[in-house]
């Protein structure tokens, strides 16, 4: 009887877990793909970069040998070595967190404060549009999950009222004949636990289906690529745990709100 709302809650939780994992992954990817170009008059060590801002990660010098060769060839009168000497140092740096445009701009200013750093290119446009889309998706998703949870909790409360009505008489009669709380509500616990197990099986089955069958057929790259994070054993344990906690709380509330026979 609790199955429908329980399944809704379990699916909501599982969806948010998967969503978190996917977005975390996506965030990592955005981070890895996003880089800032730094042009400097002198060589900068990794430690120097980290001391400028701790969020700077993975600085890499850009090899300029081929550029120098190309320039030397075009000019003719200078050697590659001479060109190399006069060219500034180029670095790409990454960021350890996914930052907003303002924060990126802040780091850019910090870098430019050093006189030997001539230019910092942040490719601001593409960064901020991706970031905004990302935040937008996150907000939409959380609103959706919150709504589902709200409706489910409402359904569970309704269901508890139905249970209360259906079992009130029996529990009161048993109480008059001296039955303990456990004996009176044993049936409810049994039904609740069965409901919890069934809803877990349904929810887990759905995600297992998505993971092992639908993901491959869907043709959605992200799903195929990230199949592993769709559904895990820990998720299963978490689902049954959450379902049991919900039904046990519900049964306890129903049991203790059904008091003595009053005429």
């Amino acid at each position, binding site marked *: 009887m609790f199955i429908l709302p329980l399944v809704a809650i379990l699916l909501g939780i599982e969806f948010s877990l998967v969503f978190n994992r996917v977005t975390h992954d996506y965030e990592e990817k955005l981070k890895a793909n996003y880089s800032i170009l730094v042009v400097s008059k002198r060589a900068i060590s990794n430690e120097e970069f980290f001391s400028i801002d701790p969020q700077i990660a993975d600085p890499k010098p850009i090899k300029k040998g081929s550029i120098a060769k190309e320039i030397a060839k075009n000019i003719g009168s200078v050697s590659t070595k001479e060109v190399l000497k006069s060219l500034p140092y180029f670095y790409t740096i990454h960021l350890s967190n996914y930052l907003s445009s303002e924060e990126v701009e802040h780091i850019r200013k910090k870098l430019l404060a050093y006189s030997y750093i001539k230019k910092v290119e942040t490719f601001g446009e593409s960064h901020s549009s991706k970031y905004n889309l990302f935040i937008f998706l996150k907000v939409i998703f959380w609103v959706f999950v919150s709504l589902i949870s709200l409706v489910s909790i409402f359904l569970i409360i309704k269901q508890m009222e139905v249970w209360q009505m259906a079992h009130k*008489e029996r529990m009161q009669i048993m109480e*008059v004949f001296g039955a303990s709380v456990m004996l009176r509500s044993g049936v409810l616990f049994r039904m609740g636990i069965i409901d919890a197990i069934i809803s877990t099986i349904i929810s887990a089955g759905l995600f297992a289906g998505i993971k092992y069958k639908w993901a491959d057929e869907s043709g959605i790259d992200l799903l195929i690529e990230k199949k592993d994070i769709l559904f895990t054993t820990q998720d299963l344990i978490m689902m049954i745990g959450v379902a049991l906690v919900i039904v046990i709380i519900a049964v306890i509330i129903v049991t203790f709100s059904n008091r003595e026979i009053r005429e």
Partner: protein
Amino acid sequence: MSNVISASNLTLAYDNGKKEVIKNANFQVKKGEFVFITGPSGSGKSTLLKSLYGAIKPTDGSLIVGGLDLNHISKRKLQELRSHMGIIFQDYKLINEWTVAKNVVLPLIIAGYSTDIQQTQAQKLLRHVKLTEQANRYPLELSGGEQQRVGVARALSKNPFLILADEPTGNLDEYSSSVIWDLMENACVQLGATVVVVTHRIPHIFNTPHRRLIIENRGIYEVH
């Protein structure tokens, strides 16, 4: 003989003591007695009976049932006491989702008896109340008189030391009424149970006169 029920200066009230139904009443019921409680409608007969199985607590005075002070009784003790009582309600209070046979052995289920004992006891009890045929039916498929016979069988199923009945034959047919009175008389005379019956119409099927108490103007008095 010892008292099974002993009330002194007993006051029973509703609405947090504002509505007093019984005030400063004194009475005792001895072991093995069969007592009728009468009185006008609304005088507090059902209220008194409810206090005897601990559904409402005295607001004043003391009430001792089966040697236990109902003013200061733990939940566990009250459960224990109730499991040795047989309570019969005017509106039967059967569990409609259970078969007649299962209803009859509710006290045995609560006491944790094996299903074998439950079954043999159910058969025996249903024979006594002449409902052998109806064992596997559900309460709502039975007539009022039949349902009350199930209620009486249930009350007697674990040989209670105290039987409490509230208008057990309220509006039942002659046949069911006589079966019920016979069973209660029997439990009292042969099994030594103490019986307290609330009724406003004392049946005249009894040869020996029974003790009678009347509730009037919030007091409880002996009728001679």
